[in-house]
Structure formats: structure tokens, C-alpha cells
């Protein structure tokens, strides 16, 4: 990719819309845009003042294209830090295509996916992790994902890592000083203090690493299977959570025969709900297949809700549900039909079930909170703590934490060894921020973008 040419692309989604925006970035952005634009009462080629909105006509070689609003943002006060122009047209695909063609004919090049953001990164306006935040924000499909992505883009995670980096630089200066000035008397920090600083820094990374599990769900969403015996109210619960009559509900046991998948947003979290066939102890042939699929779904889903019928005594099939449920890393036991006399005897003291009544819509809020907690660490819920959502970050943080634990152990073994490990950790930090990168890493990241961003 080349930085010294001028790129252009449509920045809004294809399709009819009130507005469509075209972006231009690069050395010639101003010249190209000014040449095609004629403001009310002006003439083509009139220079544009930076950060001012102009109204006028955009003309191509074959005549006027559209009435547009134009903003010129002079370098470095722009998204890419280069000269940029944004042109708002009417949102018709044909108009936008003509407008872009006019720009291309005047010397711009069609931008590659993510190229604007790549320029913002390469010009040093944002670091690599912030660029990743931009992609995540564009792609965010739920409130939680948007919040996490915004944090990343705005530099929340970068700042956390910068704080760690400063601790490491401090530690390194003490390690190095005692090596390079053995005859000097200045006091370098004692082994114990260096070890503590390193361990503490490793712990901060642990917190970030741990947030990944939740962060992953925030970003990609969470699949949640509901299992239970026939008639427990699984389909009813699905409908209630989705606020939509998605699955058939009836008093006849064995209503649901196949998996039903439905997507929704619960407490800001994107969730794929999976309703399943009831675990009937003596199924017919079709039911048996349904049950097989239900168990498979419970195995592969990120989380499992085991639904029990509170109005009925404990049965053998409930035991199957409980056992299946416990195999899932994230699980919830839920007892339904709290509106009826309760006859269930809960057998497992280690698990405390949530009581609800779908019929009366009772207990659903606490249930939603528990589902949301799958994604956030319960205590971190809604806090300002940054969340790790990308595997790349998680892997880097794991390596840093490992480097730092090793360094802490090495302080007493040999300060030069500890210093080598801290160097390694600092190099990893550079990979996180993009200070050091390879072309492959960059491509992998910026290829995720759509054109125009």
C-alpha cells in the first residue's frame, strides 16, 4: 500500500438512503475535490477553507452529478492526518457511483478496504489496537460490543498497557543500572521491590486476559441452549426472552421436535438462543433424534440453561438435565412455573437455581442479569474496566504475563536474565500497539474492514 497517492471511496452502505458520503484522502484530495466542486456563487477550482461546510454542485466531465455538501479537512486535523475531503451526496447508488467516478477520473484511486484507517494508523494518529477498535465498532452488533469496541478505539486498553509499560521501563532502568555501574554507589531498587513490581504488572495482565472470555462474547455474541424435560416451558421461555412468539407453545409434551435457533439482544449482549426438544425418558423415533440434537447443542453452546418444572416432583429426566447442565462451563439452573404450588425438591446444594414464572413474567430480570454476567465478569458489570475482545490481544497479553513471571523469578537468579525477559515483554507491547509489526499482521487486521473506512 502506498501512502503518497490520493484515495477515494463511498463511506456509507450501498442502497437507497437519504445521504451517501464519499471520502477522499491524500496529498491531492483538496485539488481534486476543489476542481470538481462549484459552490453556490463560486466557480470550479475555488480553494476550500479547512473545516468549513460548503454547499454547491459536483460536476464530472459529463456535467453536473449532484447537489452536495463538502468539507475539506486540512492535514493533520483529519481522520487520516492527511488532507481529506468528505462529500455528502444524495444516497442513490447511481449518484454515488458517478460521483466516485468523477473523483477517480480527476486522479484519485479507489481505496482498498480499511485503507483510511490504515492511514490513520500509519500516520501515527492511532495505534494498532485503536484501529482494531474502529473495525469492531463498525461491526458491533449489540450495545455491549459497541461499548467494548469504543473503549478499544478511544484508547482505554492502550492506556492500560502504557501504564504497564512505564512500570517495566522503571524496572529495566534499575536492572540495567546495577549492571552497567557496578562501582557506582547509587542505590538501585532491591530485588524484592523489583520482583513485586513485575508480579503486580503480570497480575494486571491477568485481569485483562480473564476479561477476554467475556469480551469474546461481547464481541461475537453468545450461544445459549435451553434444555429441560418436556413441558418445562422451554419454548415459552425462548419466546419471553425474545419478546416474540417464535416457537410453538402447547400443553402437549413433546411439542418441540427439532432445534430452534433465534437471535436476540439480551442486556446489551448479542445472544443466539437455542430451544430444544424435551428430554423425554421414553421417546419415539423422531423424539429420539430431537433429544440427540438437544444434547449435542448443549455440548457445543457457549452456555446452557437447564429448565425445571417447579410444579412437578423431581424426576429421572431432571437428573439427566442437571448432569448435562453441569458439563457446560457456563450454566444456569432455572425453575419455572413459580406461579403454581411448588413440588420440586432441589437435589444439588452446590447449585442455586433461579426461580421464574414465564406465565406471569416474574423473575425474568434477575435471569437476564445472570445471562449478561456470562459476558462481563460479574463484579465488572458496567464498570469502566477495559475488556479484551480480540484473540490477538489475548495472545500478546499471555506472552507478556509469562515474560514478567519469568522475569520476577530471575531477579535473584541474575539481573541480566530478568532484563532480557523484560526486554521481551516490551517487544510484545510494541506488537500490541503496532510500533513493531509485520505486513502479514497489518493485512490480517485491515482486510477485515469494508471499503470506505
Amino acid at each position: 500500500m502506498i501512502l503518497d497517492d490520493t484515495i477515494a471511496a463511498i463511506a456509507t452502505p450501498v442502497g437507497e438512503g437519504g445521504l451517501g458520503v464519499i471520502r477522499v484522502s491524500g496529498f491531492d484530495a483538496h485539488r481534486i475535490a476543489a476542481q470538481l466542486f462549484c459552490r453556490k456563487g463560486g466557480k470550479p477550482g475555488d480553494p476550500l477553507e479547512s473545516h468549513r461546510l460548503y454547499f454547491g454542485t459536483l460536476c464530472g466531465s459529463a456535467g453536473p452529478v449532484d447537489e452536495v455538501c463538502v468539507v475539506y479537512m486540512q492535514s493533520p486535523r483529519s481522520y487520516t492526518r492527511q488532507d481529506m475531503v468528505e462529500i455528502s451526496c444524495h444516497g442513490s447508488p447511481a449518484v454515488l457511483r458517478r460521483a466516485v467516478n468523477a473523483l477517480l477520473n480527476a486522479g484519485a484511486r479507489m481505496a482498498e478496504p480499511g485503507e483510511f484507517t490504515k492511514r490513520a494508523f500509519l500516520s501515527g494518529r492511532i495505534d494498532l489496537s485503536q484501529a482494531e477498535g474502529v473495525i469492531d465498532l463498525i461491526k458491533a452488533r449489540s450495545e455491549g460490543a459497541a461499548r467494548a469496541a469504543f473503549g478499544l478505539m478511544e484508547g482505554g486498553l492502550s492506556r492500560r498497557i502504557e501504564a504497564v509499560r512505564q512500570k517495566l521501563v522503571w524496572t529495566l532502568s534499575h536492572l540495567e543500572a546495577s549492571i552497567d555501574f557496578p562501582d557506582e554507589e547509587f542505590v538501585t531498587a532491591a530485588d524484592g521491590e523489583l520482583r513485586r513490581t513485575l508480579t503486580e504488572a503480570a497480575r494486571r495482565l491477568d485481569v485483562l486476559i480473564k476479561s477476554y472470555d467475556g469480551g469474546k462474547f461481547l464481541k461475537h455474541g453468545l450461544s445459549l441452549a435451553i434444555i429441560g424435560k418436556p413441558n418445562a416451558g422451554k419454548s415459552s421461555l425462548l419466546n419471553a426472552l425474545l419478546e416474540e412468539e417464535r416457537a410453538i407453545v402447547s400443553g402437549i409434551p413433546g411439542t418441540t421436535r427439532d432445534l430452534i435457533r433465534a437471535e436476540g439482544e439480551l442486556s446489551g449482549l448479542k445472544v443466539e438462543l437455542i430451544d430444544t426438544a424435551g428430554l423425554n425418558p421414553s421417546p419415539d423415533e423422531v423424539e429420539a433424534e430431537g433429544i440427540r440434537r438437544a444434547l449435542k447443542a448443549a455440548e457445543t453452546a457457549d452456555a446452557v440453561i437447564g429448565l425445571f418444572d417447579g410444579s412437578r416432583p423431581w424426576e429421572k429426566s431432571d437428573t439427566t438435565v442437571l448432569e448435562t447442565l453441569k458439563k457446560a462451563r457456563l450454566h444456569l439452573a432455572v425453575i419455572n412455573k413459580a406461579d403454581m404450588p411448588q413440588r420440586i425438591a432441589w437435589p444439588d446444594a452446590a447449585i442455586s437455581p433461579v426461580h421464574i414464572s414465564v406465565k406471569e413474567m416474574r423473575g425474568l430480570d434477575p435471569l437476564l442479569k445472570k445471562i449478561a454476567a456470562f459476558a462481563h465478569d460479574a463484579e465488572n458489570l458496567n464498570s469502566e474496566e477495559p475488556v479484551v475482545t480480540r484473540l490477538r490481544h489475548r495472545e500478546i497479553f499471555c506472552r507478556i504475563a509469562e515474560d514478567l513471571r519469568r522475569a520476577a523469578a530471575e531477579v535473584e537468579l541474575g539481573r541480566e536474565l530478568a532484563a532480557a525477559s523484560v526486554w521481551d515483554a516490551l517487544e510484545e507491547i510494541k506488537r500490541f500497539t503496532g510500533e513493531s509489526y509485520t505486513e502479514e499482521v497489518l493485512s490480517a487486521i485491515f482486510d477485515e474492514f469494508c471499503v470506505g473506512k
Partner: protein
Amino acid sequence: MKRFDVIVAGGGHAGCEAAHAAARLGCATALVVTDKSSIARMSCNPAIGGPGKSQIVREIDALGGLMARVTDRAGLQFRTLNSAKGAAVRACRAQADTIEYEEAMREELAATPNLSIIEGSVRNILAENGAVRGVALITGEELSAKAVILCTGTFLNGLLHTGLSQTPGGRIGEGPSAHLSDSLKNLGLHLGRLKTGTPARLHKDSINWDVPQPQPGDIPPPPMSFFTKKIEREQLPCHLTRTTARTHEIIRTGFDRSPLFTGVIQGVGPRYCPSIEDKVVRFPERLSHHIFLEPVSRHNSEIYPNGISTSLPEDIQDAFLRSIPGLEEVKVIRYGYAVEYDFVPPTQMYPTLESKMLGGLYCAGQINGTSGYEEAAGQGILAGINAARKVRGEEPVILPRAQSYIGVMVDDLTTLGTEEPYRMFTSRAEHRLVMRQDNADQRLCDLGRRIGLLGEEHYQEYLERQGRIQSLVKRLKGAFLNPTPETLTLLQISGLPPVDMSIGIAQYMKRPDVALKRDSVFGDLAAFDDTDIERAETEIKYEGYIARQNRWIEQLGKIENIPLEEKMDYGGISGLSVELQQKLNKVRPLTFGQASRIAGMTPAALSILMIHLKTRGRNGG
């Protein structure tokens, strides 16, 4: 007119190595010195080595240079610093008998074929068609040569300061080289100004030796050179004393006559080697600074007080010295002074130390903005090698950062330049664990032999040692320890921790509390000397780290070694900031790696550069 292949101007530590290397590589070489009796003079402290520096001295040794050998002949005390730390950062330091050092160096030079020593002072560089053609001396005599190496140290426009009085000079008792500065400027080179200082020299018999605490050398004394078998002579001790609160008080009373604080000195001093007046100002909370009293020679009565370099007026020097325990009656032989001098900012050199401005002109040593004998000598040998190779029409030698401290230093100097006197530290080397003083031979003897500087006899000695070390490492890696009663007893006797199950010896040796010892469980070590044993131990103990650093070096190597055209015009690359274009045009890096280290380089600038390279390649340049 006398004709030579190579002329070296200046017989300091850089000049000696440069002249020796060029002459040994077969070039008719002239070493031009103002005063033959000042060859290899130690202008400041009588010590060679220390962290970062001993590595350089060992590298010079492995390449076939002189400094380590001469130090071993002239040393009067030898110590290993950081001995409690790991092998990677251990450093030899020798106190040198400065008179014997000069003598030994003169002998080495006299025994070097192809080398003439000419007394005289270089006044002008002679150039023709963008290339050097010789030098003119103060006397008007001209000498011709295809390459000239300037090693004139602190002499370019040198100005000595003691208090507010100033004397032109390159060093106490020696005049400056004023015209040479002008000659360089006329050639288009740009000059900067630096300063450094030295303490008073004290009379041995005026010191009360009962007070300071003696600091003996190591027994046995660790030699500096790979090729010294043993140091036989008796060692002298150094002594430790300290400044007092009273000392600092007296020093403060001299500030109004300090050339440093009154703004008389314009040059930038070394941050890591500050004068005592600097220390008093910068560390007001410290009530005392230590002072090492170091003998200068067996043949005179001078003592060098390390740690109190100063340019305060003489009366203040007398007064503050006498406030130091043990120095109450001290007699000063020579007062401390500071020297200000011109230097040639080294970004004007290629990593061969040849100047970009004028083909065949090389600079080495303090003239390039460094400080220290070892740094000077390291550049000297490299410049000598490259000047000779240029004359002979051979490929230049550029030392990579991952291979030597000399390489790190020259890359730092030619890529980043320096704002203050540059001193080597181990922390400047990112590959410290693989670039140790103990394995400098492994890193550079092959190169030394290949270019013809390292003698065949020494090279064979190196190969034999290498063979012994490798066989020992292999043997240890193949052996096991079993917790038999005999083994456990043997371990206990030799003070080693017990084992509770069968374990590979190499594995066992990686434990921090295990050392490779003779007469223990490690088998018969009679065939190996102590160095072999230490080296084998280091190789095994550091194995994991070395593998890690080597992987890293390999990864870097991919980008590091992409060549850049010397003559490339960076002004033509749009997308690069003007500032970076200028920097690149100034530094003119030879590799992509070098470019990446230029201050202010951003990932963006690097990728623009990379693209530029690729597109040029496609369009056939």
C-alpha cells in the same frame, strides 16, 4: 613526496589500532604523530575495561588487534567486575601501568611490518576529484595516500580550562590542532563541540595510606586477551576513600570561578562521567561520593583519584582535596582540567567509518564524539581494516549489531549520532546474552582470520579451545546423574545440591545453585582449563536464553539486512515528512535496519520506504 597506501593521523588508542591493522593487512602505512613519545598515552584514568568496554577490548583481540595484549603486558591490577552476576555482564578491568603501556604499544608498532612512524603534525587533508589524496604537515611537507584515517582525539581546536584561565591545547602539555578543523570545514564536513575533564594527579608519598581502604586485584588475575596464558607479575592495590560534606562545601565556594557554571565552556560534557562539581549540583542529597585512588605507574609517584574530575581553579582544588580523608597533606603533581574540542558528528560517516563527503577519508576515536580508550580503539581497528580493504579493492567490513559491541557502537554513532561524549554500556546492546566478553573469540576470530588480521597461530589456538569447549558441552549434555549413594556423597562433598531422581547433567547444571566443578560428579576435567570450564558452563546455563535471542536475531535479520542504495535521494519520496527526508539524506543508511533506527522513524515512514524500494525494483530502479 613520500607515498603511502594509508596515513593515520594521531597515535592515541584509535590511531594505534588503525595503523597496526592497515599495515598488517599489507598496506604501506604511515602513522603521523605530533610527538612520538606520546603514542598510546592515557589522557585520563589508568584503567582499561569495565562493563561494555571489556567486551570491546576482547573483540579487538579476537579480530587480531593490540589493546588486550598490550594491557596484559602493562597491567598492574586485574579484576572481574559483576563477578556475582551472570557471565553475560561480567567484565574485566585492568589498571594499566601507563608508562609500560606506552612502551609496550611502541614495541608492538615497531614490530609491525609496513608501518612507518613519522613525527609531524597534520595540517590539511589533500583531496582531488572527491577523493582523498594525502595530507600536508605543518612543516609544509606533503605525504600522499589513498586513504587517510583521522584519530586526533581531543586535539581539534582543543581548549583547556582550569578555573577561568584557558590555554589552547589538546591535552595538558600538548598544543591543539587548530588548522585541521578548518581543513575539515573546508571539505564540507560539519563540526560540533564537546567537553570532557580529568582530575588532579596526586603525589603518592603525600597520601596517608592508613586511612583509605585497600582494594586488591583478583587472584589469579584474569587476563584481558584470549591469547595470554597467565599474568605472572605481582599486582598493586587501589584504595577507596570518599568526599566529605566539607569537600562539597568548598567545591560550592568555587562555582563563581567554574568555567562549567559561568558559561565559559560551551561544549557538552559526558552525562555518565560527570565532574565532581556536576555531581555536587546534580545530587545535592548525597553527602559523600567515593574516590578510587589508582596507581598510574610502577615507575613514577603519580596517583589518579578516580571520581573527582574537575575544572575548578587550582586553589579550590587544593582546598577540597585536603578535606578528603587521607589527603589532608596531599601534594598535587598536576591540576585537573577540562578540555573542549571539536568533533565530527559521526552521522557523516558510513558504518565503515569512511566519510560520506570525501571518499577515502576515515575518522575514528574521540573525533567521532566518543569517550574512552576502548571505544576509540574499537573504531580504530574497524577504520584501519576498512581503509586497507578499500585501498586493496576489497569489500568493506560492516559489523552487525547482533555480532559485536563495536557494531552496536558504530551503528549508534553513524545512525543516531551523539549529542554528548558517547560511552559504551551493556544496555546499549540488545543482544547482550549472546555478545559476552567470554565468547568474543567465537564471534569474531573467524572474521579476523579471514581478513588476515588475526595471526594463524592465534587462530589455531582459538580453534583448539573451541573444540575443547564443544566436546565438553557435548559430553555434559549426554551424561546423567543417578541418586546412587556414591553420587550423593560426592555431591555433598563438593557442596552441590542432592538429586532425588535420575536427571541429565545439563538439566542439573541449569539450577542456579549448581556450578561446574572439578573433582566432582562432572567426570574427568583434567583436559580442560578454567576458561574452558567456565565457557562450557555458561553455554549450558544460558542455553534457553541464547536460543531465544538467536530466534529474535533471525527474525530481525529478515528486515535488518535489506540493502538500501547509498546514493538514493530521499528528497524525492513524497509521503515522507521533509524532516525525515533530510535525516535520511544525512544518514544515508545502508540497510533497512539502519534506517529503522533513525530517530523519529515511524512505522508509516518505514512502509513508505519499503514500498518505494519495491516499486523502484519493479521499474528497474
